Every structure is written in C-alpha cells, then in structure tokens.
C-alpha cells in the first residue's frame, strides 16, 4: 500500500493542491481569498495535464537538434522527445485563466463600490436587510 502511494507521489500532491484550492473557494469568506483559491485549483489541473507529457528515460524538450548534416542517417526517434501536445493545450489554459482572473477582479471592484466590503457574510446581511448598511459600513 505504501509503495503504491509512493510510486505516484506527484499525483497525490496534485490532489492535495486541488483540495487546498477547493477549500479556499468554499470555506473562506473573503472574496479575494476565493479568487486565490480558484487560481490554485486551475494551476493544479494544468500541472496534472503537463505532467502527463513527461517520459522517463532521458527524453528532452521537443526541439529538433543536430540532424542537419547526414542524409537520413539519423532517424528521429519519438521516444527521445517529450509529448508537446499537453504543453500547447495548457498554454491556452493559462491565458484563459488570467482572463477570468481579470474579469473577476473587475467584478470585485464593482462589488466593493456598491457594498463597501468584500466579506461574503456582510454582503449577505446587507442584501437581506438594507438598513444594516449603515451599521456595517
């Protein structure tokens, strides 16, 4: 059992990161903390997908090197290079994640201008009873 856990240790650490992000999204009351949790969750998923492209046994980055001189003497072995497909897909995911973060921060500024707080319970109290706005803010 212990060997089974240790053989895939990086996957367990990805799951731990994902749970940290999920806890921050659900358990924390501050909206900026929720956004930080969403960032951690996204990066843990991107980390998992990038790690599926890793090959054991001396595979290097997918850049073609040193095959220019001989005519077909050195065949290009696929096993010598990492799989670049997850890298390219996750490149798009990083850019999309920064776009969602920017929109969320703009919404956060609008929420602060309207309620003068970023705590979720205070916002809910104001929405339920607008007279609480004076006592809180």
């Amino acid at each position: 059992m212990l060997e089974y856990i240790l053989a895939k240790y990086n996957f367990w650490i990805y799951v731990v990161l994902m749970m940290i992000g999920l806890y921050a999204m659900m358990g924390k009351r501050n909206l900026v903390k929720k956004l930080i949790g969403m960032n951690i969750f996204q990066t843990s998923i991107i980390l998992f997908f990038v790690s599926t492209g890793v090959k054991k046994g001396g595979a290097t980055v997918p850049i073609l090197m040193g095959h220019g001189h001989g005519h077909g003497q050195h065949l290009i072995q696929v096993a010598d290079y990492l799989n670049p497909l997850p890298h390219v897909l996750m490149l798009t995911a990083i850019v999309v994640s920064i776009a969602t973060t920017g929109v969320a921060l703009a919404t956060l500024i609008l929420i602060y201008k309207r309620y003068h707080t970023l705590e979720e319970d205070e916002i809910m109290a104001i929405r339920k009873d607008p007279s609480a706005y004076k006592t809180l803010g």
Partner: protein
Amino acid sequence: MIWQLDLFLLVFVVICALAAINVKDLLSAVIILGAYSFFMCLLWAEMGAVDVAFTEATVSAGVGTVLFVAAVFKTVRRSKD
C-alpha cells in the same frame, strides 16, 4: 526530470498555497501567490515544458500579480479570515 528537485519544488508549492490562503493581510496573500506561480514556473521548466514555463512566468506571475495588487489597492487590504 530529477525526482529530488521535483519533490522539493512540489513541497514548496504546497507551502506557498497554504500560506496564501491562511495569511490575513490580502497584500501578503497576493505576493505569496506570485511566489507560488514562480515555483510552478520552475516546476514546468524542470518537467521540460519550456514554453509553458515562459508563459507562466510572464502572464501569471507577472501580469496576474500586478492585477491583484491593483485590485487590492482599489478595495480593502484587511481580511477577516
């Protein structure tokens, strides 16, 4: 991929994530999130995904931290949890 370096960086990433969601000062949390992104970038460079590491270093650790800091200065800095 050297597994000692891999494990070391993964432990640092988990520590940075826990610190970012537990610290009460929002500006500190945002800066720790930038450090988290930087360690993630080192992790990807070590895994052979050089293009992803470049993009993470510029977009997430650079632009993302600047956006977060600007939003914290426009709103409130203290957090209750």
